[in-house]
Every structure is written in structure tokens, then in C-alpha cells.
């Protein structure tokens, strides 16, 4: 079985799917990613599907599951690079990709993750009474 490589770039894990995945490969990717998120402490996952010429219900479900798993592990997932024909087909198929953030390309995906992270940190700071007194 082939495996999809996971690259670490700074605080982000980047997965660029370059092969026509079998269902088993897709399930393996889910597990590999969960382990890498915990091992690296990364707060963002970018899944680049530029090279995928179809996304069927199985891969669609895998993307949703990855997004949910990462959320539980304190990481944000963004799916980037969906082809127009794939988007049209997904909608007609009836797949809504619930809970998945998307961006047009990797660069925008990274911006999205950075912004989400900044929001979250600010929120935690507001919430913490000690933070107020700590700043002069």
C-alpha cells in the first residue's frame, strides 16, 4: 500500500496528495496525521488536493474526519487547491464537507491558520485574569 507523505513546515503540517488513493491509503493518512499532530504539537494542517482529479464520498468523508480529529487535538485543518470540476461534482453528489475550512491555495491556507491561531490566543488572554495584571 502506498502512503501519503506528511511534511512539517514551521508550526504547520502539509499534506499534498499526489496519487490516486485507495480507500486503505486514505484511512492510513487519517491515522498518520493524528499521530503527527500529537508528536509535533502543530496547530495547523493543510491538505493540498490540487492533484486530485476526483473527490468521491469516501475521500470527502476522510477530509471531514481529519478536520474533526485535528480539532480535538487542538489543530486547525484547511483543505486547499480544489479544482473547479471537483467542486461542481461534489455539490451534485450531495457532499457538503461539513466543518471543513477551505482556501484557494497553500499560501492562503497558511494565512487562515495563522489568523485562526491569533484569534484563539487573544481569546485565551482575555479569559485569563492573571494576564491583565502581568502586563504593565
Amino acid at each position, binding site marked *: 500500500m502506498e502512503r501519503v507523505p506528511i511534511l512539517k513546515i514551521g508550526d504547520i503540517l502539509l499534506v499534498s496528495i499526489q496519487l*490516486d488513493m*485507495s480507500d486503505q491509503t486514505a484511512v492510513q493518512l487519517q491515522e498518520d496525521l493524528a499521530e503527527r499532530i500529537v508528536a509535533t504539537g502543530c496547530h495547523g494542517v493543510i491538505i493540498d488536493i490540487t492533484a486530485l*482529479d476526483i473527490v468521491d*464520498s469516501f475521500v*470527502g468523508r476522510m477530509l471531514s474526519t481529519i478536520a474533526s480529529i485535528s480539532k480535538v487535538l487542538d489543530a486547525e485543518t484547511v483543505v486547499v487547491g480544489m479544482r473547479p*470540476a*471537483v467542486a*461542481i461534482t461534489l455539490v451534485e*453528489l450531495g457532499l457538503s464537507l461539513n466543518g471543513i475550512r477551505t482556501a484557494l491555495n497553500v499560501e492562503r491556507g497558511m494565512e487562515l491558520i495563522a489568523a485562526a491561531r491569533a484569534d484563539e490566543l487573544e481569546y485565551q488572554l482575555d479569559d485569563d485574569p492573571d494576564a491583565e495584571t502581568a502586563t504593565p
Partner: protein
Amino acid sequence: MTAGVDLGQPQAQAIRSDEDVVRVRQLVRSVAVAVKLSLVDQTKVVTAASELARNTLVYGGGGSVDVTIVDNGRRKGVQIVFADSGPGIPDLDLALTDGYTTGGGLGLGLSGARRLVDEFQIETSAETGTRITVTKWSR
């Protein structure tokens, strides 16, 4: 174009494993390109084929697929026949309902695949298994 594929003849592919589902996608794509389907229509028919091939594997216990170029005099198209000798589909109307599943999936395979093609025929019985024929025409 896939090397060594004679597109004048129906192309057969067994569906026995995950990897075979990938092969079905690749075969359908090569035929869809040969009949000059638009990129969106190629994507739709390959996606439908992927759903139906997976159903053949998961619910039908494996089977086979035949991909043929068809011509109605005005347009060319891709016709794909999925056959298995599994238990059949007891309630077809229910199986064609969005969101209904017995296999733990999303329940979009059969209903979604039907929306993605131009023609969709299904014959199923407990004795003979399930045979699904789909056609996508060039525009």
C-alpha cells in the same frame, strides 16, 4: 491515453480489492477522455464510477465492470456496467434515498452516482445479484 488499451472493444476490470477501485477510475477516465467528454463531465462520470465500484466491492462482495464506448448516431458516450453476484438490494427505493446506508458510509453512493450520470439502470435480485448500467453522453 492509456497505452495498450483498444478503445473499440469493451474494457473489463475485475473488482476484488481497493486497488481495483482505483483501476476502475483510471479505466473510466481514459475512455471518457477518448469520447471527448468535457472536463466537468469526465470528473462526474469518474466520481460516479468510483462510488459504484466501491458499492460492488463492499455490498456485492466484489464483481466486475465493463466500460464501452456507445454511439447513438448524434453523440458518443461512455457506458459502464457494474455486476456482482451478491445478495441484491432488498429495498431499492430506500437504497436510492440520500443519506441511507447499511455500510457505515455517507449514504450518497447510489443516489449521488445517479445524479452524476445521464442514464441509470439497476436490476437487482437475491438470486442474480446486482447489475447497474450507467451512461454519460458527450454534449
